[in-house]
C-alpha cells in the first residue's frame, strides 16, 4: 500500500519532469509586426540591416521551436553588427546582448498551445512533479521507521553514490544552468508557466530569472519536506530548515518582486556583498541613488550588512547564522543538496585547494570592487588601462555564472552540495576569517567519547575532517564550518555539540584525552 503510493508519486514526478524538459522543444512562435516595432523602440535599435532582415525573413513566419527562432534572431544580430563594424557605423550597432534581445522578442511571440495554456501546463509540470515528490517523500514518516538517523543504503544507492542516477542529475543540472545563463531564449516556454505568478507579484511577464527564483523556491519547499521527515527528531535541523525556507520565500522571492511593482529596484535584503558582487557596480549605485530615499536606505543597509551586521552576528553565532540559516545558496544546498552531502572530498589536498581558491575569489571580488568604486568616483571607465566593464564581465562570467551556478549546483551529485560555498563564495571566505579568529562559535568535542567511526567527517558537506579533531578531544574551530549541525546529529556517541561560548578555551589542543589520569605536568616540569 505505502509502496504503491510512493511508486505512484515517483511516476507522477517523472511524468511532470518529462513534460517539463520536453517543453523547450515544442511550441509555435510568430513575431508580429506590432511586437517587433515595440521591441525595437524599447531597446533603442537603430540597425536598419537587422530590422530589414527580420522583416523579410522572420516576421510573420511560424517557427516550431524557440531554438530555431532564437538562432535566426541571434544570427541576424551578429551579421548586422559585423557589417556595421566593417562600415564603422557605430551608431547603428546593436548594443543589447543578442541572447537577451532574442529572449525578449521570443517571449512576446509565443502563440500556440503552450503560450496560451499556462495554468493547465503548470499543473502538468510543476503540479505533477510537486504532488509526485510529496507522495514519494511523505510516506517516509512510516517507511523510515521511528525517528532517528536514517542513512541506510546511502552508499549503495545509485542516486547518492555517484551512480547512474547521480550522473543523470549532474548532466541535467549542468545543461540547465548553461541554458539559463547563456541561452535563455531556449526556455521561454518554461517562463510562460509562471507568468501568472510573476504578473501578480511584479506586474511583469516572467523573465528567466523569475522562473529560476520560482523553481528554486519550489524545489527548496519540496526538499525541505524531505528534510523535516528525515531529521524530525532534531529541532536544530527543523528550525534551520524553516529559517532558510522563510528567507528564500520572503526575502529572495517575494519582497524583491513586490518592490519592482512599486517602481523600486529589485533587491534581496539578505544578500550581502561580496556574495552580491554587483552591489557596488556603477549601474546599481546610480539606480539606487536615483530611487531616492528608499534607494539610499538600500545603499546604507547593504554597506552596514557587510561591515557591521555580518561581523557582529558571526562573532556571536559563527558563520552558520548566514550560511545555513539565511543564505539562499546555503538554503538550496541544505534541502536539494542534503542527499549529496557525503560526497564532499575530505582529503588534506582538498582543504589546501579550498583555502587557495576561496580566498583568491575574495581577493578578486575586492579588487574588482575597489577598481569599480574608484572608476565610479573618478568618473572614468578605465583604471590602470583596464576597462572596469571587462573585469566585471570576467568576474560575472567565471564566478557569478560558471562557479556559483554551473559548478556550484551542477556538481551536487558528484562533489557534494557545498562546492560553491566551500571553494567559491567570497562572502563565505570573509565570514570564515571572522569565525576562525574572532568568534564565540565552536563545535565542542565531548571529552574522550569519540570512537573514530567517521560518520561526522563523512556527512560533513564542507569536507571538514571532523573526526581528526574529535578523536583527539579537540574542539572544531574551522573557517569553512557552516554549522549545519549534521556531524552532531549523525554521531552515534553524542560527541559533538555546536555551541556559542566564551572565546577562551575555544581552541583546546590536548595531549591526552579526558578520562586518562596521566600527569604529564610532572614530566614537563622535569624537562
Amino acid at each position, binding site marked *: 500500500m505505502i509502496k504503491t503510493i510512493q511508486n505512484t508519486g515517483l511516476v507522477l514526478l517523472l511524468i511532470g519532469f518529462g513534460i517539463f524538459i520536453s517543453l523547450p522543444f515544442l511550441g509555435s512562435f510568430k513575431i508580429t509586426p506590432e511586437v517587433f516595432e515595440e521591441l525595437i523602440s524599447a531597446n533603442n535599435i537603430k540597425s536598419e540591416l537587422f530590422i530589414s532582415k527580420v522583416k523579410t525573413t522572420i516576421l510573420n513566419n511560424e517557427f516550431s521551436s524557440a531554438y530555431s527562432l532564437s538562432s535566426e534572431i541571434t544570427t541576424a544580430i551578429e551579421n548586422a553588427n559585423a557589417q556595421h563594424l566593417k562600415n564603422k557605423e557605430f551608431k547603428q550597432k546593436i548594443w543589447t546582448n543578442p541572447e537577451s534581445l532574442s529572449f525578449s522578442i521570443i517571449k512576446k511571440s509565443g502563440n500556440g498551445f503552450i503560450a496560451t495554456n499556462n495554468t493547465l501546463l503548470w499543473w502538468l509540470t510543476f503540479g505533477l512533479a510537486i504532488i509526485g515528490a510529496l507522495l514519494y517523500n511523505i510516506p517516509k514518516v512510516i517507511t523510515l521507521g521511528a525517528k532517528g538517523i536514517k542513512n541506510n543504503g546511502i552508499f549503495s544507492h545509485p542516486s547518492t553514490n555517484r551512480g547512474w542516477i547521480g550522473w543523470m542529475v549532474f548532466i541535467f543540472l549542468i545543461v540547465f544552468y548553461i541554458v539559463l545563463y547563456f541561452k535563455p531564449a531556449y526556455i521561454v516556454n518554461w517562463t510562460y508557466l509562471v507568468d501568472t505568478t510573476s504578473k501578480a507579484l511584479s506586474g511583469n511577464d516572467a523573465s528567466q530569472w523569475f522562473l529560476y527564483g520560482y523553481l528554486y523556491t519550489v524545489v527548496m519547499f519540496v526538499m525541505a519536506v524531505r528534510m523535516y521527515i528525515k531529521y524530525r527528531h532534531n529541532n536544530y535541523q527543523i528550525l534551520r530548515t524553516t529559517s532558510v525556507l522563510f528567507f528564500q520565500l520572503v526575502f529572495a522571492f517575494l519582497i524583491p518582486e513586490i518592490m519592482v511593482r512599486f517602481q523600486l529596484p529589485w533587491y534581496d535584503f539578505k544578500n550581502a556583498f561580496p556574495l552580491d558582487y554587483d552591489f557596488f557596480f556603477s549601474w546599481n549605485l546610480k539606480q539606487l541613488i536615483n530611487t531616492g530615499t528608499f534607494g539610499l536606505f538600500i545603499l546604507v543597509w547593504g554597506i552596514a550588512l557587510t561591515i557591521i551586521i555580518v561581523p557582529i552576528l558571526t562573532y556571536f553565532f559563527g558563520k552558520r547564522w548566514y550560511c545555513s540559516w539565511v543564505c539562499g545558496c546555503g538554503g538550496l544546498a541544505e534541502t536539494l543538496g542534503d542527499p549529496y552531502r557525503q560526497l564532499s572530498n575530505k582529503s588534506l589536498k582538498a582543504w589546501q585547494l579550498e583555502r587557495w581558491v576561496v580566498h583568491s575569489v575574495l581577493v578578486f571580488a575586492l579588487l574588482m570592487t575597489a577598481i569599480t568604486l574608484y572608476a565610479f568616483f573618478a568618473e572614468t571607465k578605465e583604471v590602470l588601462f583596464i576597462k572596469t566593464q571587462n573585469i566585471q564581465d570576467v568576474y560575472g562570467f567565471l564566478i557569478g555564472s560558471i562557479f556559483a551556478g554551473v559548478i556550484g549546483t551542477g556538481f551536487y551529485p558528484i562533489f557534494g552540495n557545498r562546492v560553491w560555498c566551500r571553494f567559491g563564495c567570497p562572502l563565505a571566505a570573509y565570514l570564515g576569517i571572522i569565525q576562525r579568529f574572532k568568534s564565540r562559535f565552536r563545535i565542542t568535542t565531548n571529552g574522550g567519547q569519540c570512537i*573514530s567511526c567517521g560518520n561526522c567527517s563523512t556527512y560533513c558537506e564542507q569536507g571538514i575532517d571532523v573526526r581528526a579533531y574529535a578523536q583527539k578531544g579537540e574542539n572544531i574551530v574551522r573557517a569553512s564550518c557552516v554549522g549545519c549541525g549534521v556531524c552532531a546529529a549523525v554521531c552515534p556517541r553524542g560527541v559533538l555539540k555546536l555551541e556559542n561560548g566564551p572565546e577562551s578555551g575555544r581552541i583546546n589542543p590536548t595531549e591526552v584525552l579526558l*578520562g586518562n589520569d596521566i600527569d*604529564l605536568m610532572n614530566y614537563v616540569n622535569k624537562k
Partner: protein
Amino acid sequence: MEEHIIIIGNGISGITCARHIRKNSNKRITVISGESPYFFSRTALMYVYMGHLKFEHTQPYEKWFWKKNKIELIHKYVTDINTNDNELIFEDKSTIRYDKLIIATGSKPNKFNWPGQNAKGVTGMYHKQDLDYIEKYAANSADCKRAVIVGGGLIGIELAEMLHSRNIPVTFLVREPSFWSNVLPKEESEMINREIREHHIDLRLNTNLKQINTDTSGKTNSITIAETSEQIVCNLVGLTTGVSPNINFIKNTNISTNKGILVNSFLETSVENIYAIGDCAELQNPTNNRKAIEAVWYTGRMMGETLAQTICGNKTAYKPGHWFNSAKFFNIEYQTYGWVSNQPKTHETHFYWEHETEKKCIRINYNKTTQEFIGINTLGIRMRHSFFEKILNEKKSVQYVLAHLADANFDPEFYTLYEKEIVAKFNKENSCTIQLKKKSWKRIFSKA
C-alpha cells in the same frame, strides 16, 4: 641507530601508542597487522554494511600520514615470537627484529563449543573479515531468509541493527532475562527490549543455543534452541557471546598469560621489553573497580597513550580515570559516567526518571548516607563528559548534580530539555527543594 619499536596490531591501542611514541621521540616504529593494511575504526564496521559509510571512511588517517610520520606498516600475520633473539616470525616464515615489542592484538569472538559452530554461515562480528563474510552470506533478504544472533551484548544488538537495515528477519537469542541486564538496570534494559522488538526483531529472552544444523554441503540451515528444542530455519548465525583476548600465537612463548597477556601497572609483561595493551592485556592488579580485561575502545586508547610515555622514557603507570562509556541501541543513544550497576549496592541508592512517551531516561547512583554522586546512566539524552569528570573528582553530591543539570546537558541546541521535570521528581521523592540553576559557561569551563 634509534631503538626499533614493533607493535603487533593496528587497532586503536596500537595506533594510539605509535602516534604518541612518534610525538615524543624519533624511534623507529613498525606496526604489524594481518587483518588490514591500515588502521580503521572497528566500531564503525557496522555502518559499512548498513551503507552509511564506505570502508575507507572508517580509516581515520589518509595513506600519506604513515609515511610522513615515519610509521612503517607491515600487512602480515605474526605466527610466533622468539623472545630470546627479539625476533618475530611471520606466516611466510620471514622474520623481523625488535628492541621493544608491544602486543596489541585485541580480541576474538567467543565460541562455546556448540555443535556446528564452524559451519558455513556462522560468524562473529569483530574483524574486517567478519564483515566481508556477512556481506557474502547475508547480502540481502533473498540470500538470507533469516539470521539468528546468539548473545545479548553490544555486538549482538549492532549485528541485529545491521541485518535489519537490509530487511533481513532476525531472531535474537539472549541468555539473560532481559537485554544486557548484567550491566543495565531493569528499566533501561526493558526500554532496550522494547526498542529491539519495535524494530521487528524476534527477541527471545532466557534462551540459549543448543546447536547449529547444516545441510549436506555444510551450510547452516537452522539452529536448535536448548530450552525448547525448537528449530529456527536460518541462513546466517551470528555468534556475539562476548570476546576474549586474541593471543593464540603467543601460547608457545614464555610470556605469561592467563585469559589475556598478564601485565603489571606499567603494562609490562613477564618478559623484559615486551608490553601488552588493549583488549589482549590482563591487568594483574586492576584499580578503581576496573576489570582485569576491559575490551573497550577507550581503555585501549588510554593504555596506548600511557605506554607511549613509558617507551619514551617517562615511566608511567596505567591509571585510568573515572569510568565512562557509550553505545547506541538502534535509535537510542546510551552514555554513562562513573559507576552505575544493575542493582544498587548496599550503600547505594538510585534515582530514576523516564520520559512518559519517548525512550529517554536518566539514572543517578549515589551514596545513601553521604549523598555523594557515584554515577549516571542516560538513554536518549547526551551528557557532558567534562562536567562529570569534575563532579567525580570533587566528590559532589547528587543534589549538586541535579541543580546543575543544565551545565551537564550536551544535547544539540533547541532540543527539549527535561531538567525541570527531573529535578521535580527527585524533590518529590526525597522531600527536598533543589532549585535548578541556569546554565553557566563560567562553571562549565572552569578547570577542576
